């Protein structure tokens, strides 16, 4: 049942537009956010379906493209390590298992990080002309990220089986940990979206920053155990997310659960703040777009 059908029976909606910031009325704003989130479900699903269909109808290799980049990355690192150009410390796992799981998980995080800005920019013509719940854009991006993530994890699991890694009962927690990873990506991505929609510099700078962040996360090599680099790894909130997921996937007893949970909690708070900012910023951003 869509929101529209229900509103047939309810008293007429009154919309008031003033220069005042909606942040001045937090209760009203929160109510609006939740109502729009509910109302945007159908639209989000439609938009996600539209994008996925369009994407795969026009690409002969379809889903394979989602895997292409992480697999290429894996190949590069296998070469780098195998040829002895770079010596990588023992990971506790066979190196192919370590690097494949790392790059695939990182690509899921990057998908989630890129989605809010990408989706919002792609929807510019719609945003500039039509009043629809803006949450639909974000939700649609999230649906696509989750679907892609499911495919990637399935492929990863199959590849790990092939490499001789058999997951145990703790694999049941993978979806939950995956949600944590996507939550972090979405929260960080959404945070830079408002400014990123104004200045394209943000998108580029973020891409570079993420490249650096990857090397501060145990993606292609394990965290160093001592020195200032180890300190940086400890401060990186993404490290526990990737590490826990890899542990779950490979049947290693999970490491620091407390760190994982506190990062998830912080990211959830950050997501709410970023969502509020996104919503408040939208009329200002649309003003600077051409109609």
């Amino acid at each position: 049942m869509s929101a529209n059908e229900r509103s047939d029976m309810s008293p007429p909606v009154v919309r008031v537009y003033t220069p005042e910031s909606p942040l001045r009325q937090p209760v009203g704003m929160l109510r609006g956010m939740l109502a729009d989130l509910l109302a945007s479900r159908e639209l989000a699903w439609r938009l996600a379906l539209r994008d996925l269909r369009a994407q795969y109808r026009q690409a002969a290799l379809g889903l394979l493209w989602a895997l292409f980049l992480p697999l290429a990355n894996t190949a590069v690192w296998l070469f780098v390590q195998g040829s002895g150009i770079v010596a990588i410390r023992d990971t506790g796992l066979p190196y192919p298992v370590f690097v494949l799981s790392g790059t695939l998980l990182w690509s899921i995080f990057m998908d989630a990080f890129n989605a809010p800005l990408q989706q919002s920019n792609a929807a510019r013509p719609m945003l500039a002309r039509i009043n629809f719940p803006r949450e639909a854009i974000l939700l649609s991006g999230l649906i696509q990220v989750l679907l892609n993530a499911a495919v990637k994890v399935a492929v990863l699991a199959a590849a790990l089986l092939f490499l001789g890694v058999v997951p145990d009962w703790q694999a049941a927690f993978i979806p939950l940990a995956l949600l944590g990873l996507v939550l972090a990506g979405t929260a960080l991505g959404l945070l830079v979206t408002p400014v990123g929609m104004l200045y394209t510099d943000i998108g580029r700078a973020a891409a570079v920053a993420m490249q650096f962040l990857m090397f501060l996360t145990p993606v292609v090599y394990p965290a160093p155990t001592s020195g200032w680099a180890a300190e940086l790894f400890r401060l990186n909130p993404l490290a526990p997310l990737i590490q826990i997921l890899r542990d779950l996937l490979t049947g290693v007893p999970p490491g620091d659960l407390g760190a994982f949970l506190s990062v998830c909690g912080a990211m959830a708070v950050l997501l709410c703040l970023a969502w509020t900012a996104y919503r408040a910023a939208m009329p200002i951003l649309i003003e600077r777009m051409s109609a």
Partner: protein
Amino acid sequence: MTDTLVQVENVSKKFCRGLRRSLWYGMRDLSSELAGSGNAGHAALRPDEFWAVKDVGFALRRGECLGLIGHNGAGKTTLLRMLNGLIRPDCGRIEVRGRVGALIALGAGFSPVLTGRENIYVNAAVMGLGRRKVDARIDEIIEFAEIGEFIDMPVQNYSSGMSVRLGFSVAAVLIEPDVLFLDEVLSVGDIGFTVKCLNRLRQLAQRSAVILVSHNMQHVSSFCTRVMVLEKGAITLDTEDAALAIDRYFDLVRHERQVSGTGAAQVLDLTLQAGAAPLAGTAPIPRGTPVGASLELEVGAGCPAAEVLLYIHDEAMAPLVCFPVQDAAGRSLLLPPGRHRLDIPLGPLELNSGKYSFVAVVRDPDTHTAFARVQGLHPFRVFSDATYWGRIVRPAPTTHEP
């Protein structure tokens, strides 16, 4: 039902001319917004800014259809975007009651790769309409759009007319708004489809409050119960007499005078006679009035002979009427070198209401080389109570026996 559905009070909105500055102001607005102070803090103009909409106020009731007219950059679309809640006013207050329908971006969310049928669902979802509503009426939409068997073809293979028809049909069939915004949507498709759209909109308009933005005065004249003229963001006329507003709109059209040709002849002056008297000032000429032109020109000594043509152009500088100047025997009137004054009868002015101007051409009768061509001469307006679809309007009194 005479309830007020749209209430606009002293609404203003500023815009910035330069892109770099505009983005920077956007950045500053963003930070003050997130600090919670909103747009209220800076109601004054910053450098490079101007009022796109200034101090606009009106109220609109159910059953009313308001036409917003004005030239490009007058603020019509900005006002509509504020009413639609896309951007917030810098000053003032807007209240909109009931369900809002907007036919502004037709076919919003269309993906070129998907079929027409799939796109109907996407488009409907953007307008907040669920799958079940579409399922129930999809045949009606396809029929309205006159798409037929092409409905299962990707939209990228549609002609532009087809995709616009489909976009319009989704909205026109599905929405049941209390408040309806229309921005230039009727100027698309062929005339048969436009008439169908107008009829559908008339149906919708009966039970809603409509705001129509258009440059097409026929639509405004036939559709609106009230018209506002916007000039530089401000309302300069708000009237229920559409003819008056349309005349005002045409009054704002500028016809630039432009001289070309070899310079071997010169057009010195053109005056108009409306009815029996010379045309006074900028008063409009009622349609049907007999008019005459008095043209003064000088043919240079280098020209053995010159012929004269007078044209009437519309506001888009498209030629509408040509008056080849002839002698009593019906041959082209040949002028020898020297100064001439020609009194040219133009007959009853049968033009649709609008703004027009003359073009005078003095040319070589054999080679048609233009000695002088002056466009934008003596702009004038034609006034009539009704604006019709034709460029030329000639009422036809007809005897009728039952």
